[in-house]
């Protein structure tokens, strides 16, 4: 094993409560704090742990996005990635285009494994990893909560609705990670300084030969329906009363 690629996405920070623009054209993003998609942080952490365990592995962090996405790639470098590539674009890309772009990078870099988060917390699409694996004609192991590498195979425990499922896949493969795989490390100040000197290449979809297709047009964006205000009860007896009246217990 020589190289691990980690795909990360710049998203609105987990703690920001996103609001819809009054004119319904999207959500308010001006001045909002941006971060690495939390699932992608877990993906990167896993790659770094493999590197630390096995040694002599290069970890490449890649992303697609606006010029400022360099900030998130610098965070990845500070966490421990060896180098980074930004495919710079001002247009929002759909998962299939993202997968095509990562495929172009995979064909150049030839990683043994590609890690990414199971979903991004902005569009919640949960597609890119599976699409990338399909286009690359390689295995996918989604929702990973445990990753064990044995030579040219990987055993992955997956979080599925019924519990846990284990599959074995041949390398190279795409692994999308779930929450419980690991706890990402905190970045320390000296690492941030060091990260400034690490290579960060900027390229474009044009240069990679990827054409952007927009399949889906967003017609409008609305806030979700609000639930009606409820009532407070004073004790358990009254609670049981209310629920019995509603025929719920």
């Amino acid at each position: 094993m020589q190289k691990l690629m980690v795909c990360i996405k710049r998203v609105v920070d987990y703690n920001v409560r996103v609001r819809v623009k009054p004119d319904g054209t999207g959500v308010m993003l001006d001045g909002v704090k941006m971060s690495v998609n939390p699932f992608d942080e877990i993906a990167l952490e896993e790659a770094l742990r493999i590197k630390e365990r096995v040694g002599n592995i290069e970890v490449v962090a890649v992303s697609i996005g606006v010029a400022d996405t360099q900030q998130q790639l610098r965070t990845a470098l500070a966490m421990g990635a060896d180098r980074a590539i930004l495919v710079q674009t001002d247009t929002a890309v759909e998962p299939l285009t993202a997968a095509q772009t990562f495929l172009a990078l995979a064909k150049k870099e030839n990683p043994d494994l590609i890690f990414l988060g199971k979903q991004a917390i902005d569009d919640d699409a949960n597609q890119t990893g599976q699409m990338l694996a399909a286009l690359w004609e390689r295995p996918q192991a989604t929702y990973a909560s445990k990753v064990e590498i044995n030579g040219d195979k990987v055993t992955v425990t997956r979080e599925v609705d019924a519990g846990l499922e284990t599959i074995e896949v041949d390398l190279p493969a795409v692994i999308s990670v779930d929450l419980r795989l690991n706890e990402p490390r905190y970045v320390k100040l000296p690492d941030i300084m060091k990260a400034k000197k690490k290579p960060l290449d900027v390229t474009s979809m044009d240069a990679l030969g990827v054409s952007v297709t927009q399949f889906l047009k967003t017609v409008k964006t609305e806030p979700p329906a609000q639930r009606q205000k409820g009532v407070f009860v004073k004790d358990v007896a009254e609670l049981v009363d209310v629920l019995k009246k509603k025929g719920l217990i």
Partner: protein
Amino acid sequence: MNKVLIIGEHDGKTLNPATAKCVTCAASIPDSEITVAVLGSDTAAVATQAAAISGVKTVLRVDRAENQHPLAAIFAPQIVALAADYTHVFGPSTSFGKDLMPRVAALLGVAQVSDLMAVVGAFQFRRPIYAGNAIVTVAADASRKLVATVRVASYEAAATGGSGSVESKTLNVTLPSHTRYVGAKSGSTDRPDLQTAAKVVSGGRALGSADNFKILYSLADKMGAAVGASRAAVDAGYAPNEMQVGQTGKIISPEIYIAFGISGAIQHLTGIKDARTIVAINKDAEAPIFEVADVGLVADLFQVVPELEKLIG
């Protein structure tokens, strides 16, 4: 005519109720004709169940030894072969469908609409983004095949009583050997399935330990309810991940959801918004869970749970 192919989810014996929910969604597409495909090593039983869903015209059986376990890399090329005659290909937004459908979409070279929650037109749908903080209406190109996962919490299961025809399909598709099923470990419980249960009791970090969660199991068993947990409780190790409800866990729509000691982070609320009635019990009167609760009780859960169990007995 819109020809919708739904990929049925099953365990070899029983068709998952998510499939009948996909049928309800597909039936709301104007001028639709619904086919359900079941892939497995022996799909006789589940094909019969699928044919009995009201609104299903045809059930396609694809029996093959390699299909014993639902591996996306194995299923996807077969679904692509089946999809030729259809305008829409739907799967449920369960871990099965979420894993599989994007692989199908990519092989078809088309986009996917994830978590379809409402049909606006044959190629126009509503779906949640930002953990349900916003709902977008998206329009897809009607000249291409449309792949989607159906947000099962948004739909009731279609009734039984249908009489679709069952057809066996032999597909000439070469399957990859790079992905192998090893095994599964389920939460082995006699309680109702969390995803489809009518009643759910759920606990948050305030439970304090895995041991303390037992009081919820006891209450749930008395009520015939499933047990859920907040991400905070799962992260703390108090409950297994398959119990997680929320943006990164299960999105559920029970008749009644009783939240004990759950503060109500937006990521959790997105998983329960479709519940008919939400009951919240929390010591903190300011907890955001009360903003969405139909019935709230400001109290210590450790006093409420045993008392509730006694009173409903």
